[in-house]
C-alpha cells in the first residue's frame, strides 16, 4: 500500500526553510548546467543557420576555414565549367567566388577584436536566402563600400552607417546594415569581392560557393574533381556542414568546461539534498515506526522518502530551467576558435537541453535521497517507536 502523497507535501510545509534551501540548491546547479548547454547550442545554431543544405562550398583541401584557403581564379573557372551547377533566373550559373579576410576593430567598451570581411559576388544574394537589408542601401559593385551584419554596430565602435573604416590603404564607407537571421553573417562585413581583392593586391579567392542541381550531381562533381589535376587540391562540401564544423571547437570547449564544473557542483548539491533527507528521516523516526505499525511496508516507506527527495529536486530543476529560459533574450559575442573572428550568438534553449536538465535534476534527487530512504525503510518498528 502506498503512503498518501499529501503526507509528503505536508512534510515540505513543516520543514519549509530546509526544503526551500534544497530546492534552491538543485535549481542553481540546473540553471548553470542549462545555461552552459544553451551557450554551446547557440554557437552551433548560429553556424548552422549560416550555411544551406542546397549549396556547396569549395575550399582548399585541409582548410577548415576560409581565411586559410587559397583558390586561384583558374580553379574557380574550372569548377564553374563542371556540370551539376544550378542556374539562376537570369540563366547565369549560381556561383559566388568569395574572398575572406580579417581586420581589427575597436570593441564598444574597449579592447580590440577580429572581425571577418567577406568579398562577395553578385550571385551571392540569389544563392543565400534570408539576407535582408535592414537599414541604408546595398554596397555598389565597383565602389569601396561595406554593408555590415546587424550584430556588428552593437559590438564595435565606428561601425554604423556613414562611418568609414580604413584598411588595405583605403577608406571604406559603411552604407547599410543587413539582417542575416542570427547567422554568422550577422557578425561580418560584406563588400564587392573584386574591390577587396584589388585593394589587397591578391589574385586568389578564398572559397567558391554554388548551388548544385542534385545530390547525385554533387557526388559526380566530387568524383570528377578527384581525377582532375587542376581541381584535386580542392574539396567540396555541403555549405551547412562546412559552417557547422566551425562551431565544433568552441561549442565542445564550452560543453566540456561547463559539464565538468556542473557535474562536480551537482555532487555538492546532492550532498545538500542528502543532509536534508537524513534530517527529514531523523525527525520522523517515531512517525515511521507508527506507519510501519499501521501496516505500511518497508518498500512503501522507501518509496515515500525517495519521492520526497525526487519531488524536491524536480521542483528545483523546473525553477532552474524557468530562469535559464530568460537567458534566451540575451546574445553575447566571443572569438570563434575556428575562424579567429568575432561571432555573435544568442543563448538557445532546445527540448534536448530541457530534458537533460530535468534528468540531471532527478538524478541528483534519487542519488541524494537513496541512502536516507533506505535507512528509513530498514528501521525496526520497536526502536523507532521508542525514539521519542
Amino acid at each position, binding site marked *: 500500500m502506498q503512503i498518501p502523497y499529501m503526507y509528503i507535501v505536508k512534510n515540505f510545509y513543516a520543514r519549509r526553510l530546509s526544503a526551500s534551501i534544497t530546492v534552491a*540548491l538543485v535549481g542553481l546547479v540546473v540553471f548553470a548546467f542549462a545555461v552552459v548547454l544553451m551557450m554551446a547550442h547557440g554557437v552551433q545554431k548560429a553556424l548552422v543557420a549560416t550555411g544551406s543544405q542546397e549549396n556547396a562550398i569549395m575550399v582548399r583541401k585541409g582548410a577548415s576555414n576560409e581565411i586559410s584557403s*587559397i583558390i586561384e581564379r583558374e580553379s574557380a573557372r574550372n569548377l564553374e565549367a563542371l556540370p551539376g551547377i544550378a542556374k539562376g533566373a537570369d540563366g547565369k550559373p549560381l556561383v559566388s567566388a568569395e574572398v575572406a579576410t*580579417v581586420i581589427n576593430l575597436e570593441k564598444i567598451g574597449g579592447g580590440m577584436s577580429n572581425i571577418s570581411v567577406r568579398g562577395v559576388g553578385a550571385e551571392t544574394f540569389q544563392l543565400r536566402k534570408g539576407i535582408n537589408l535592414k537599414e541604408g542601401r546595398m554596397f555598389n559593385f565597383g565602389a569601396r563600400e561595406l554593408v555590415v551584419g546587424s550584430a556588428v554596430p552593437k559590438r564595435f565602435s565606428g561601425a554604423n552607417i556613414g562611418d568609414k573604416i580604413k584598411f588595405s590603404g583605403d577608406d571604406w564607407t559603411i552604407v547599410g546594415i543587413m539582417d542575416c537571421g542570427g547567422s554568422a553573417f550577422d557578425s561580418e562585413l560584406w563588400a564587392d569581392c573584386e574591390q577587396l581583392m584589388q585593394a589587397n593586391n591578391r589574385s586568389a579567392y578564398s572559397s567558391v560557393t554554388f548551388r548544385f542541381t542534385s545530390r547525385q550531381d554533387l557526388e559526380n562533381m566530387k568524383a570528377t574533381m578527384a581525377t582532375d589535376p587542376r581541381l584535386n587540391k580542392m574539396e567540396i562540401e555541403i555549405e551547412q556542414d562546412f559552417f557547422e564544423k566551425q562551431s565544433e571547437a568552441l561549442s565542445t570547449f564550452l560543453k566540456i568546461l561547463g559539464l565538468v564544473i556542473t557535474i562536480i557542483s551537482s555532487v555538492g548539491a546532492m550532498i545538500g539534498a542528502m543532509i536534508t533527507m537524513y534530517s527529514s528521516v531523523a525527525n520522523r523516526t517515531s512517525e515511521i515506526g507508527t506507519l510501519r505499525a499501521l501496516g505500511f511496508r518497508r518498500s512503501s516507506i522507501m518509496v515515500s522518502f525517495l519521492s520526497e527527495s525526487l519531488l524536491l529536486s524536480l521542483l528545483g530543476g523546473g525553477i532552474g530551467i524557468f530562469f535559464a529560459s530568460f537567458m534566451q533574450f540575451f546574445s553575447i559575442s566571443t572569438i570563434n576558435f575556428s575562424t579567429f573572428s568575432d561571432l555573435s550568438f544568442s543563448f538557445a534553449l532546445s527540448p534536448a537541453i530541457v530534458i537533460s536538465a530535468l534528468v540531471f535534476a532527478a538524478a541528483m534527487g534519487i542519488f541524494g535521497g537513496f541512502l536516507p530512504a533506505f535507512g528509513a525503510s530498514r528501521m525496526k518498528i520497536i526502536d523507532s517507536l521508542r525514539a521519542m
Partner: protein
Amino acid sequence: MEIIKIIFKNLFRHPLRNTLTMLGIAIAVSAFGLLATVLTSWDAGMEAASVDRLITRQAISFIFPLPLSYRDKVAHTEGVQEICALNWFGGVYKDPKNFFPRMACEPETIFDVYPEYQITKNELETFKKERNACVVGESIAQQFGFKVGDVMQVEGDIFPGTWDFKICAIYKRRDKNTDGTQMFFNWQYLNERLLQESPDRANEIGWIVSKLKPGANAATVSEAIDSQFRNSPAETKSETERAFNQSFVSAYGAIFTAIRAMSYIIVIIILFVLGNTMIMSARERTREFAMLKTLGFSGMQLSWFIAGEAIVMSLLGSVVGTVLLFGMVYVVGELVPKQFFPIFFVAKSTIITAALSAIVVGLLASIQPIVRTRKMKIVDGLRFIG
C-alpha cells in the same frame, strides 16, 4: 578557550551530517578552484608576455603580411637590439584536431629574442644549417611523442602543398609559465618554395618581434617604427607583447564572464549547503540554548558557538577541497591537450581566495541561526519540541 572546546564537542554530535557538509563544501571548493585555475592560467600566459619585446604587424590585422623590406628598417630603428621576423604557417598535421602553432622564423635570432625557449648550442647550429629543420616545444613533443630526428609531415593550407620538417631540437621551457606548445622552422625553407610555386606571395613576413635595448622606452620605439611606414600601403602597428595579448582579452570577454558567473554560483551552493546544516543544528539545540541563556551565557557567546562551528566546518571543507583541487588540476593537465591551456597550475591566489571565502561563507551561513537564537525568549525555547 572553553568556547573552542564546546565548538569542537558540538562538531562531533552529528558526525554523519557534519562529515557530509564538509564533503559538500570540499567538492564545491574544488570546482571553484578549478574555474579560478582556468582564469589564472590564462592570465599567467599574459604575465609571461614580455614588456621589453615589441610586436610589429600590419595595422589592419594580423593576417595581412608585411613586405620583407620592412625587416631591415625595423632592425635599424633606434632602441632595437635584435629582431626576428615570423610567419604564421598553419597547416594540418595528420588531423585538423592536432592544432599547435607552427611558425616560420629566422633561426639566427629567434632564440635571442625568445630566451625563455632553451636549446643547446649544437642543436642551434643544426637548426641554422639544415634548411628543413624545425624545433618543437617540450609539451607538444610529449603529447605527440616527437623525438629529435623525426620527420613531421604537414599538409599546408595557407601555403599549399606537403611539407616535411625534420625535428632537430626540442626546446625546454625556462619558466613555469613559458609556453611549450610552439613549433618553429626556417623562414628560408618557406620562402624558397614560394619563389618557385607562387612568386607573388614570396618575400613577405607575417610580423616582426623586436627585442628592445636595455633602458629603451617601448612607446618611443613603437612610434619610431610605425612612423617610418605611415601613409604607405602597409601601415604598421607596434606594441609590447603584453599589450598585444591584452588587447584580445576583451575579445574573449564573454567566456571570461561566463566562467566568473559560474564561480559565484558555486560560492552560493557552498553557502546553501552549510547554511542548511547550521539551521538544522541550531533548531535541534533550541532547548539547549535556552538552558544556556538561563545559566547566564550571553547572546554573544551563543553566537560564537554557532559561527565558530560553521567557520571550522567550512575551513576544514576548503582544506580538503584544495587537496582535491591539486589532484583535479593534475588530471585535467594530463587529459586536456596542452594547446588549450599551455600553462596550467594552481596559483597561490586561488588557495587564499578559497580560504577567505570559507570564512565569509561560514559567517554568512550562521546569520539566520544566530538571529533566531538571540531573539528567542527563554520560555519559548524551553517549551520548543522541534
